[in-house]
C-alpha cells in the first residue's frame, strides 16, 4: 500500500510541476457554476485515470483541473465525507459511468483508491493486489476502444468485482456499496443471460459454416450445467416401462399422417415398375419407413421370392445376407469367402433369367452395413438384373457411403417418404439407446444364464462379483488374478483343482460373462464386463431368492 501511495504521490507531483500555470488558466476559463458539481462527481474516476495514465494529463485539461482539486482532497482528512456526498448526490451519474467504462477493473481500482483513502485494513489491500493483475492482464488482451466487447468483458471480470464488493460489505460506506453491488449485479447478470445470444448474433453476421464449425470446436471447455440424471428419480427406465408409458400417449396428427402414408402407398405400383426396369429404390426422409416397406411387401410381393433384411439388427452382416440369398437358391454347402459366394450368386442369377429376387433392406445405413466392403457387395448384388433392391436410409450422412462407382452399381432412384412414424423397432435394440435404458437386458440375461448353472458355478461367479464390487472405487483395478481367485474358490470349497475352475471359466467366457486379460506380468486377470450397478442389483435379487 505504501508503495502505491508513493507512486501516486510521485505522479501527482510530476503533474503539478508540468502544468501549474496552465492549470490556473484553465480554472479561470472553465470554472462555471453548474459544472462544478458534475466535476466533483467525476472526481473519483478521474483520480483513477490520472494515477494510471499520467501521460493523459497533457491532453486533457479538465482532468488537470480536477486532479488539482483532487490533490487537495486526497491530502485532506474528510475524504470520506466528500466521497459520500458525491455518491449521494450523483448516484445515477456514478452508476452510469461504471457501466460505460471500457475497463471494468476500474471498479476494483475504485475500491482500491477508496480503501486507500478510507484507510482500510491491510488484508483488504492484499486482496486487491491479487485481483488487480488479473484485470490488467485482461486489459492487455482486450483493447479498451472496443466498446462492443464490453458485456463479455465485464462478465469475465465479474468474479473480481464481486470479490471486491464483498470485501467492502463491512465497510462503512453503505451507500456506495449498495450501488456498486447493484451495478455489478446488472453488469454480471446481463451477460449471463445474454451471453450466448449476443455471440450468436455476431456469428450470424459472419455466417459461414466453416467458421461456425471451428467456433463450436475451438475451445475444449464447454459450458454446460453439471446436473446429472441421478438426481431425477425417473431417470432410469427399462425397455418395457418405456414401452408401456409410450403406449399411453395418444398419437397426434393422425389424420395428416394417414394422408402422408396414403400418398406414399400410391407409389407402390410405380416402384414395382421401376424396379423391374432396372432401377433400385432408396427411401429417405424423417420417420420410420419400416411399416411402409412392410405394407409394400404384403401388398405387392406376396407372390415373389423376397428377403427382408433388418439392417438395424445388431448382428446383421453381409455374410448373413448372402447366406439367405443362397438359401433361396437352395444351395447346400459352404463357401470359402464372401467374394466366392457373391460370384456364385452372380453366376446363378445370370444363368437363370427367370429367377427373380426382391431384397428389402430396412436401414441400409445401419452401423453394421455402412462399411465400404458391405456396401460394395450389396451394390454388386443389386446391380444384377434380376435382383430388385428397395432400401431405406435414415442417417443424416448416409449418402456419404456411396462414391460414384457404388452409386452406379446401385442405380438409385430416390424417393422421399417422410412418415413421422416413430423408430420403435429400430431403436429397440439395447445398443442403439442412450445409457439410461441399459440394464434390463444384461440383468435378465445374467439371471438366465446363472440359473442354468450348478450351485458351485454360481458360487464362483458370486465370488468374482463380490471381489469386483469391493474394488469398484479403485481406479487401477484390472481384475482378479487367476491364482488368487483359485485360492478363494478353494477356501470356499467351490473347486478342488484349478482344472475345474478353468472349465467353469470357459463356460462363463462362452456366455461373455467374464473377460480375461493378460497383465503386464503375464498373469491372467478376470473381469466381469458388466456395469457395477447391475451387479449390485443382481446380488440383491439373488439374496432375495435364496
Amino acid at each position, binding site marked *: 500500500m505504501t508503495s502505491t501511495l508513493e507512486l501516486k504521490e510521485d505522479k501527482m507531483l510530476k503533474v503539478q510541476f508540468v502544468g501549474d500555470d496552465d492549470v490556473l488558466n484553465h480554472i479561470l476559463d472553465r470554472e462555471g457554476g453548474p459544472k462544478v458539481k458534475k466535476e466533483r462527481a467525476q472526481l473519483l474516476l478521474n483520480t483513477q485515470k490520472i494515477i494510471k495514465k499520467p501521460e493523459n494529463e497533457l491532453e486533457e485539461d479538465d482532468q488537470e483541473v480536477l486532479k488539482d482539486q483532487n490533490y487537495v482532497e486526497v491530502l485532506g482528512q474528510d475524504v470520506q465525507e466528500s466521497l459520500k456526498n458525491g455518491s449521494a448526490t450523483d448516484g445515477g451519474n456514478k452508476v452510469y459511468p461504471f457501466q460505460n467504462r471500457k475497463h471494468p477493473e476500474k471498479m476494483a481500482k475504485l475500491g482500491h483508491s477508496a480503501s486507500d483513502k478510507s484507510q482500510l485494513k491491510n488484508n483488504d489491500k492484499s486482496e486487491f493486489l491479487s485481483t488487480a493483475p488479473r484485470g490488467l492482464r485482461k486489459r492487455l488482451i482486450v483493447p479498451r476502444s472496443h466498446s462492443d466487447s464490453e458485456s463479455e468483458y465485464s462478465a469475465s471480470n465479474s468474479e473480481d468485482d464481486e470479490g471486491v464488493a464483498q470485501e467492502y460489505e463491512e465497510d462503512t460506506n453503505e451507500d456506495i456499496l449498495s450501488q456498486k453491488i447493484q451495478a455489478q449485479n446488472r453488469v454480471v447478470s446481463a451477460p449471463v443471460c445474454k451471453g450466448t445470444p449476443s455471440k450468436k448474433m455476431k456469428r450470424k453476421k459472419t455466417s459461414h459454416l466453416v467458421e461456425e464449425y471451428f467456433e463450436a470446436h475451438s475451445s475444449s471447455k464447454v459450458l454446460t450445467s453439471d446436473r446429472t440424471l441421478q438426481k431425477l428419480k425417473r431417470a432410469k427406465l427399462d425397455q418395457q416401462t418405456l414401452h408401456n408409458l*409410450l403406449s399411453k400417449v395418444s398419437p397426434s396428427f393422425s389424420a395428416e399422417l394417414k394422408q402422408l402414408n396414403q400418398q406414399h402407398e400410391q407409389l407402390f405400383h410405380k416402384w414395382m415398375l421401376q424396379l423391374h426396369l432396372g432401377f433400385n429404390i432408396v427411401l429417405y426422409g424423417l420417420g420410420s419407413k419400416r411399416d411402409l416397406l412392410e405394407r409394400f411387401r404384403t401388398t405387392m410381393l406376396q407372390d415373389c421370392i423376397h428377403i427382408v433384411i433388418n439392417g438395424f439388427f445388431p448382428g446383421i452382416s453381409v455374410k448373413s445376407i448372402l447366406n439367405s440369398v443362397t438359401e433361396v437358391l437352395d444351395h447346400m454347402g459352404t463357401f470359402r469367402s464372401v467374394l466366392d459366394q457373391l460370384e456364385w450368386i452372380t453366376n446363378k442369377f445370370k444363368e437363370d433369367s427367370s429367377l427373380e429376387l426382391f431384397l428389402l433392406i430396412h436401414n441400409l445405413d445401419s452401423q453394421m452395413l455402412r462399411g465400404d466392403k458391405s456396401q460394395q457387395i450389396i451394390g454388386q448384388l443389386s446391380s444384377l438384373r434380376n435382383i430388385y433392391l428397395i432400401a431405406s436410409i435414415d442417417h443424416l450422412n448416409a449418402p456419404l457411403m456411396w462414391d460414384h462407382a457404388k452409386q452406379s452399381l446401385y442405380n438409385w432412384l430416390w424417393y422421399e417418404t417422410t412418415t*413421422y412414424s416413430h423408430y420403435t423397432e429400430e431403436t429397440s435394440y439395447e445398443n442403439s*439407446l*442412450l*445409457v439410461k435404458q441399459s440394464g434390463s437386458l444384461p440383468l435378465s440375461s445374467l439371471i438366465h444364464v446363472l440359473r442354468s448353472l450348478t450351485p458351485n458355478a454360481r458360487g464362483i461367479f458370486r465370488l468374482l462379483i463380490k471381489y469386483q464390487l469391493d474394488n469398484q472405487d479403485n481406479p487401477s483395478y484390472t481384475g482378479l488374478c487367476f491364482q488368487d481367485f483359485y485360492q478363494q474358490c478353494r477356501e470356499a470349497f467351490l473347486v478342488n483343482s484349478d482344472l475345474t475352475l478353468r472349465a467353469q471359466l470357459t463356460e462363463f467366457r462362452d456366455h461373455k460373462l467374464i473377460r480375461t486379460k493378460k497383465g503386464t506380468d503375464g498373469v491372467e486377470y478376470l473381469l466381469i464386463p458388466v456395469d457395477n450397478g447391475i451387479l449390485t442389483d443382481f446380488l440383491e435379487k439373488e439374496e432375495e431368492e435364496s
Partner: protein
Amino acid sequence: MATSSVSKGCFVFKPNFKKRKISVPIEDYFNKGKNASEDSKLRFETYQLIWQQMKSETERLQEELNKNLFDSLIEFLQTSHSGLWKNSEDWSCEIKLREIPTAALILGVNVTDHDLTLRSLTEVLQNNVTPYVVSLQAKDCPDMKHFLQKLVSQLMDCKVDVQSKEKESVQVIQKNVHYSMDSLSAWYMSVTQKTDPKMPRKKRTFSSQWQSPPVVLILKDMESFTTKVLQDFIIISSQHLHEFPLILIFGIATSPVVIHRLLPHAVSSLLCIELFQSLSCKEHLTTVLDKLLLTTQFPFKLSEKVLQILTNIFLYHDFSIQNFIKGLQLSLLEHFYSQPLSVLCCNLPEAKRRTHFLSANQCENIRRLPSFRRYVEKQSSQKQVALLTSDRSLKEETQSLLENLHVYHTNYFLVLRCLHQFTSSLPKYPLGRQIRELYCMCLEKNIWDSEEYASVLQLLRLLAKDELMAMLQNCFKVFQSSSAKELGNTAKKIEEFLAQFQSLDETKEEEDTSQLQSKGLQKTDLYHLQKSLLEMKELRSTSKRQTKFEVLREQVVSFVDSLVREYLLPPDTQPLHETLYFSSAHTLRQHLNAAPRIALHTALNNPYYYLKNEALRSEEGCIPNVAPDICIAYKLHLECSRLINLVDWSEAFATVVTAAEKMDANSVTSEERNEVIHARFIRAVSELELLGFIKPTKQKTDHVARLTWGGC
C-alpha cells in the same frame, strides 16, 4: 410382425413354386398405379420400343466414338507384338525385348463409364488381336498372390471360351494351385503349341499372322493398385517376356503422370509406354444429345428445365454419360407413365393411326390440354364448336396438328443448327459454344427477345467476308443434308448469297475508288472549310454503309434473323406439344439428385410442410409446442453448443410439452404425466441419435455430443 426378431436379421420369404410361376407382367404395374386410364398397355409398349431404340442408338454411338481409339490401340498392339516376334529367334541379344509394351489409356474422371469402354475394348481385342485378354481390378488384387491367381484363372477361362473341348485339362491345371510366372509361361507354351495345329478356322486370321498370340492384361484402375504389387509384377514379367508375350494396358482416370508416381524409374524403364487419349466426355455428351434429342428420329423431347437438370447433373456431378442416359430413361418412363396422351408420342404415321382409335376419354384429355385450348380459342366460332363437341373433327384436327408438329420439329432443328453455325464461333460466345446451350435458350423463350441474341446480330454485322462465307457454306451443307421441302428454297437462297459474295470480289475495287475524290478542296475561309469537311464526313459515313459487301452482309443477317423468328418458336407455342415434351423437371430432380439432408431438416424444422395442420403453422424459426416430439427435441438441441446436458434438455422439453398439454390433459395425475413426458423425451432423443444428430459421449456425465453445427 413377421419380420422382427431378436435373434435374426434376415427373413426369407419363398412362396410355393406354383404360385410363383404366375408372375405378373410388368405392364400391369404400369397402368394400375395411377388413374387407370386406357392405352396404358400401348403406352408401355411404346415406351419399351423407344427406349430400346434409344439404347441401341447410344451403344452404337459409343462404339463409333471409341472406334478411333480402339483402332489406334489395336495398331499399337499389333506392331509392338510383331516386333517382338520377328526377332524371336535371337531374342536373347535384343535388350529392347526386356521392355513390356504398354498402352496408357487415359479415360477421364467419369469412372463409372470406364467399365463399359473397357468391356467393349476387351471384346474388340478378343475379336481382332488375341483370345488372351484379361482384365483385373485393384480390389481383387491386394497382393501378388491374388494378382497371379486372378490372372491365371482368367487366362484359363479365356482358353475355355476359345476351345470348350479342352475344359477338362484346364480344370486339371486349375487344381494344382501353384501360381507363379514360371508355371504361367509353361502353360502358355503348352497351350500355344498344342492348339496351333488344330486352331479353329475362325481364328486362323490372326493365328497365321503370329504363331502365338500375345497376352493382353488390362489393369482397369491403375491408380488404385498397390505400388508394390504393380512393381513386382512388372519386374517379374519382364524377366519372362521372351516366353510369355505380355502387353499391358493401364486404365488411367487422372493424368499420365501417375505412372511415374506409382512406379520408380527402375521399373518404368522396363515399360515401353504409349499414351492413348479417350474421347472427352463432353464431346460424348454433345454427340449423344445431337443424335438422340436434336433429331426427329425420336419423337420424345425434353423441355428446357429437364434438359438443364440433366446437363447440370452431368457437368457438375459426375461427367458420366451412363448417368445421363439413365436420366433420359427415367424421363422417358415418367412421361409415358404420367401423361395419358403420350400414346401419341411415336412416329408420325403410327401416331396418326392411333388418333383414330382414341377413346372419348382421351379426346377429353386432348381438349383439356392448355396448348390445345389456346389453339381452339383462336379458331372461328364454328370450328370451336366442332372441335369441342365432335370427336371426329377433333381427331381430324389432331392429325393435322400432329403433322404440323412434326414439320415444326424438322424445321426447328435445321434452323437451330444453322443458327449454331453462326453463333458458335463469335467472340465471347453470347449464345453459348455448344449447341445444347443454344437449344436450351431456344426452348425457354423467344430467342430473339434476349439480349444475347441482339448482341449476336450485332457481332454478325461486323464479320469479315471470308468468315461469313465459311458460315454460309456450313449452313448450306446443313440444309442440303436434309430433305425438308419447306426449307428447300432456303438452301437456294444461301447459295445465291454465296454466289453474290463471290461476284463481289470483282466489282468491289471499282466501287470504292469512284466519286468522292472529285471534289477537290478549294480555297475558302474557315467557315466554309469546316462546312465542307463536315459534309465530306457525312458523305463518307453514308457511303461506307453503302458498300456492296455491307449491303449483302446486312441482307444475310436479316435473312438469318427472319429464319430464326419464323422457325425457332419455343415448343410451348405449338398445340399438342404436351404429348411429346416431358416437362416435369421437379420429379426428375427429386429422384436423381435428391437432398436427404434438406428433407430431414425441413421435416424437423418445419413440420407444417408435411403435416398440413393449422396448429403447426408458425413463422420462421419458431416451432409450435404441439409439434411432434422429435421436432421439439431437435429445436431445443439446436440451441446448444457442442455438448448437451441431458437433464437440462429433458427439462426444457418437459416445459415445452406441458405448456402444450395444459389445455386437454387434466385427468391424469401430474406424476404419471411427467413420466410419460420423460419417456417421450427418451424416445425423441434416441431417434435423434439414430438420425445421426447426436451421439453419447463420455466427456461429461449425462451429456450427449452434438454432431452438427450451426444454429437455428
